[in-house]
């Protein structure tokens, strides 16, 4: 994936990326109290062409949102599950900013309404918060939301496992044995 990235970044974007890359460095030096400089790269998959829009650059965090037009998942759902996934893995923490709705729509080449839908869902599920005049930030309102979400994701996977087992005549006992083995592995 890294190679495709290099091939598709246009000249103009490279320059822009370098300039943008210097800004946080200068800003960071200027404002030594601020030790958190945000680093986001939004990657888009348009059929087989990859388009990279590099916003800021720093040593440290990298946030990628990848949309696939060939996936069966609705686009807004791809966005919400990726962001939820990152929060659960700890890649995004409370206080981390999200891009503006229109700016994300532009980066991803999708409808503004789709991004609005994604942000509304994330807000409803307690993952983000919009502060008027400031922007949208990760804000884990309720630790329980996170636990529910994690359980829901595990259950989705379990459903997949059950489907495979039933299609292939694998019995429940065999499944439970395997599950126990995996769980006790580490």
């Amino acid at each position, binding site marked *: 994936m890294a190679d495709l990235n290099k091939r598709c970044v246009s000249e103009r974007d490279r320059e822009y990326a370098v300039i943008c890359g210097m800004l946080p460095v200068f800003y960071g030096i200027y404002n030594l109290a601020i030790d958190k400089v945000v680093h986001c790269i939004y990657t888009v998959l348009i059929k087989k062409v990859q388009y990279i829009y590099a916003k800021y650059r720093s040593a440290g965090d990298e946030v990628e949102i990848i949309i696939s037009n060939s996936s069966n998942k609705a686009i*807004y759902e791809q966005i919400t599950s990726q962001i939820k996934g990152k929060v659960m893995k700890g890649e995004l923490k409370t206080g981390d900013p999200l891009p503006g709705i229109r700016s994300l729509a532009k980066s991803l080449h999708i409808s503004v309404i789709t991004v609005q839908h994604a942000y509304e869902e994330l807000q409803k599920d307690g993952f983000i918060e919009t502060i008027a005049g400031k922007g949208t930030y990760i804000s884990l309102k309720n630790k329980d939301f996170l636990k529910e979400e994690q359980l829901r994701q595990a259950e989705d996977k379990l459903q997949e496992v059950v489907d495979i087992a039933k299609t292939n005549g694998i019995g429940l006992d065999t499944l439970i044995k395997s599950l126990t083995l995996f769980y006790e592995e580490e």
Partner: protein
Amino acid sequence: MEPILQIKDLTKKYKNFTLDHVSMEIPQGMIYGLVGENGAGKTTTISAILNMVEKNEGTITVFGRDYEQAEREIKQDIGVVIDGLGPYSGYYVKDIHPIMKKIYENWDRDLFFGYLDSFKLPLDKKIKDLSKGMSVKLNFAIALSHHPRLLILDEATSGLDPVMRDEILSLLQEFVLDGTNSVLLSTHITSDLDKIADYVMLLHEGKVMFVKTKEELDVDFGILHCGKDMFNALSDEDIVYYIKEEFEYRVLIQNKRELRASIRDLAIDRASIEDIMLFYIRGKKR
């Protein structure tokens, strides 16, 4: 927020064609796609929006005003990109500036030359000697340089290669970035709309077939592939349109989530705007 453009029951009768009671509302900050076959009425609709044809019925309100009171003011704020060179083919590219300066109050010289530079358009070339791609880019440069609030594009990207089309799409999204300008994009290259449209209207034989947000099309619509048994098991409401192929039925559905939840193992594909258009025009109802 007041819509940028509002059309109610627009009707225009020609000898062999009637644009029949078309209503449209374009909110601020949105990209509105108008699709349909050649001859469906897209260009007629746009001509009416630009007050270039007399309508038989209906009202058109642009920026909250109508043409009877404020034609000049309205046209100052509309940018138009259509296929073709217009009346400027004999001029040089650089001649456009002094001409447009006299026409548009908000003509922005620096912006125009900035576009010429970033589009790499040669100043000393005659407009009729420009390649197809370059003349389209020039049209865009002109349309954007007088700071319009509404950009109307009629088949503006046909004849462009995919790389250029992608640049233009980025330009359009940038145009609506602050949430106050809008774009009306009339095209039969539906893949462009698949990427950036917020709303889609399908016109067919002068009538509006549907108006939906791109989000609705993405979330609710799908194409179900099934055999005879499954097809007969579907209810009439499930089937928007269907096409019977040699070995399967293809069904356009608009309740993808409910069907997936109630029936296991469904083969449902994403429906592109082109797919939906074909179903509406060539599909059958049960």
